């Protein structure tokens, strides 16, 4: 709004709604209120112990000051960092549908390589959403008509031909909570974030990973990528490739390669294809080896 990108006619302050709790659910899941602050969620005992990937993703996002203020619902709804979207001047299909995409042939080093369309290649900026996508979270909403429970992968829409539409919320519909189902695999989970500077910076690539090994083979694996997708990217091809395989660099590299085979890079962000694969391997090696960063 400060940059004249959005010009809403009416703003409603929802900060007084009683939606800021972080609750442990009886079966081992979490229910996170939409107004819970990032910093509170990151420190909640149930999150730290049962979902380290969520806590780590939160702590690697934004800055301490922002985490103290930013809500979880707001985090999911944050707008993209594409400088052409934010300059309020360049053609941008997300800001001004039909005007074109200046990023396609512009300065797009930070842009997405997965889930792109010829209308938009803006990267989804959230960290915690990547962890939540890996954990199969569910977004609970309340609208004028009814309540809905939206699986988080469906909450984030691919740009396709309608990049202006980023999530399926209807007019008057509000996120009330995010539920994370019990996920024993998440106890061995990690969020790795790679970026140009050490803090207060968006990811070039990030990886949320969780893995359960049984008899040397991968029994369950969760893998999602940030910094490379137009939405928080669940790496389902890689997961499918990994299940049942022996944990090791070869199987990790094979899975990473399969996931990134679908990448559509531009000249300035082509490095992300290789970087993302190496990041996936690093995350899985770290989880399975106790490999140190």
């Amino acid at each position, binding site marked *: 709004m400060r*940059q*004249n990108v959005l010009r809403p006619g009416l703003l409603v302050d929802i900060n007084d709604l009683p939606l800021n709790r972080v609750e442990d659910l009886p079966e081992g899941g979490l229910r996170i209120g939409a107004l819970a602050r990032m910093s509170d969620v990151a420190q909640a005992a149930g999150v730290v112990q049962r979902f380290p990937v969520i806590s780590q993703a939160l702590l690697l996002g934004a800055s301490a000051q922002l985490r103290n203020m930013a809500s979880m619902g707001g985090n999911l709804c944050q707008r993209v*960092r594409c*400088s*052409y979207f*934010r*300059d309020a*001047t*360049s053609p941008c299909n997300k800001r001004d549908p039909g005007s074109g995409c*200046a990023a396609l*042939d*512009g*300065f797009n*080093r930070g842009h997405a390589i997965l889930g792109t369309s010829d209308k938009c290649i803006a990267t989804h900026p959230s960290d915690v959403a990547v962890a939540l996508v890996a954990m199969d979270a569910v977004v609970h909403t309340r609208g004028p008509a009814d309540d809905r429970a939206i699986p988080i992968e469906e909450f984030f829409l691919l740009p396709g031909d309608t990049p202006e539409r980023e999530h399926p919320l209807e007019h008057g519909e509000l996120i009330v909570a995010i539920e994370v189902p019990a996920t024993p695999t998440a106890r061995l989970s990690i969020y790795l974030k*790679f*970026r*140009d*500077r*050490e*803090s*207060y*910076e968006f990811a*070039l690539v990030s990886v949320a990973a969780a893995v359960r090994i049984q008899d040397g083979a991968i029994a369950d694996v969760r893998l999602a990528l940030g910094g490379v997708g137009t939405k928080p990217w669940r790496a389902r091809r890689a997961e499918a490739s990994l299940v049942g395989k022996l944990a090791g*660099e070869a199987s990790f*590299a094979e899975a990473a390669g399969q996931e990134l085979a679908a990448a559509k890079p531009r000249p300035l962000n*082509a*490095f992300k294809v*290789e*970087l993302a694969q*190496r*990041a996936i*391997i*690093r995350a899985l*090696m770290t989880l399975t080896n106790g*490999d*140190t*960063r």
Partner: protein
Amino acid sequence: MSGVIGQAVSRIDGPAKVTGSAHYSGEIALPGLAYAEIVGARVASGRITSIDTAQAEDAEGVAGILTHLNMPKVNNVPLLPSLIGGPAPGETFFPMQDDVVHYAGQPVAIVVADGLEQAQHAATLVQISYAETPSITTIDQGRADAYEPEKIFGGLMPAQTRRGNVEDGFAAADLLIDAPFRFAANHHNPIEALTTTAVWDGDQLTLYDSCQGIKAVQLTVAALLGLSPSKIRVLTRYVGGAFGAKAMVWPHVTLTALAAQYVRRPVRLALPRGQMFTSCGHREEQEQHIELGATSDGKLTAIRHHKISITSPFDDWAEPAFGVASQLYACPGFEGVHRLVRGNTMTPTFTRGPGEAVGVFTLECAMDELASELGIDPIELRLRNITDVDPNTGHPWSSYGLRECFERGARRFGWAGRNPQPRSERHGNWLIGTGMATAGYPIAFFMHTQRARAHLYADGTAIVQTATQEFGTGTSTVMTQVAADGLGIGLRDVRFEFGDTDLPNAGSPVGSNGAMMVSAAVHNAATAVRDQLITLAVSDSQSPLHGADPAGVVVAGGRMTLAGDANTGETYSSLMQRHIMSDAEAIGSWDPPPLDTPHGLLTFGAQFARVAVDADLGIIRVRHMVGAFAPGRVLNPKTARSQLMGGMLWGMSQALLEGTHMDTRHGRWANASLGDYLVPVNADAPDVDVELIEVEDHVTGPLGVKGVGEIGQVGAAAAIANAVYHATGYRVRELPIAVEHLLAHLPSGPASAAAGAQPDLT
């Protein structure tokens, strides 16, 4: 004299700054103040075909709008660096004089309103149509039409330098190094944006301006508006960083004065962050190509150093690639050439170590390559080439200290025993590398007479004044020390007053010269008062010092005594009261040595860096930096260290983060925000150690001060780049160095780690 020079005094402006009582130029409360917002051109080249201000004028609170249709005409003023002490516009172009657009962001309208938000809103309502013409905004686009200018750097330097015969030098060489480098543009981004508040009282103009030189602001606005400088007063106490962005006087200052005249109210303009990328210059996008010739024992025989860069349509600006880079080593053959491309950008300007930061980077990376090729330790290679005289003139250095910088820096860093083999050290996923570089920064005597006034009261307290300003460097602290020292009184008994053009003249503290030139005037003023009173005492039959040799009298704590006999003497107070004097006063002045002074003039240093590079992902983090510097006399080791440390971190930033990227389709910077233009955060800062090597200098003013403002950055980026090579075995010849440059050169996957394999580097 009182020994307060050289003490690690904490900043006297610290409490005011941390409690928020220090008022900056955008925080001056004024009745009836209105706010201005500039509308910048959306296109990079063309003409304005229509401007419709009707909607904006009807917006709530709008007091007036100026465009080229109603903007008064201003005088043409040539571009001269503020160092020289005259009018110093940042570019010879002044906006809103006609309908031509030369660069994106060029001011095309200025909107004034009762409130800041009202001005911001109304600015979005100004409707402007353009007839756009093709633009050139990168070197690549204009390379075919590159030209060799006569002079660069605001006319200060020739575009070409030659010494000896470079062809003979290359012919005599056993080894050649040929290294081209590319550098992204840089923007200064001080945290306080450029801010001007203009107040007219009849024909008298008062400006509160966030600047590096209040006199330069006064003279520039006077020249542009055709006013007498006596009608203009500039008041600037605190400035929130500058880094060269405020060294010159940019159009918005005069635009604010004209807007205030138009609406007949005080007007404030604070540039929004986005406009900081199109309002106060930048370090230009550039390429440098260096060729070294050397004998097999490491003696340089020839250096060819060429640069091509992009400038504005109006000015031949290039930061010099090879001022210092031509002076560090005794190489018989040197050839330096600058070439320029005219483009649709504003005129570039001084940016943190202008010239040296990039030129010395180029030289020092090539020297590292030479050391690798010859199998000579990088420090040893430099020791074989350094020189006791300026190789361009043959004059001895006014003071040196470079050998000590290498020695003490190396010791502090732990350089000895370094394994020169790249990729020879690995901790976990991190490849560890070390690198070093020489640093140098010029001392330029372009300034005119510097003046200060010292005023001592009969109670032994003093006010010392000069027209400088505090832009975060520690000037006000250090000058208080110099004044106290010169007067021979305690630090708490001196009030240093500054930030007002009505005070005695001080030049713009640019080019790292502030401490040297301002301290010279302050010292001379303080000692002039001291000498008056000593003279009075020795000629006063009632004084215990009667008949003493004035040269044998010392002053400390406000008491004059015989040197070596502390019991014989009296205080200033007793002398002044006896003579019924309420005060004593003197103006001190200092003129720099002539430009052809027979001395080589550089400040020297040595930089060391240890970096960690993620062996698979190419992420670079700096772990340790050591800088050893010989800045003449150190007035305050605490503030000096802080400045040098800051400079070294800027060097890290230059090496790894900072780059502004042009979108050539629109001729606009593509990352004009602090979210997209990265500078380091605290988490990036490594351990930084600074060694101060004091050297005696009898040329650079009465105190022998050189400067610490910028040399901290010079060589720091080269040390890091050399360390990245040492860590990875690959030389990146582009700044900033980023993941994508390294990734293809790092053997993929953790296999190399798992097997502990050393890649084949041959």
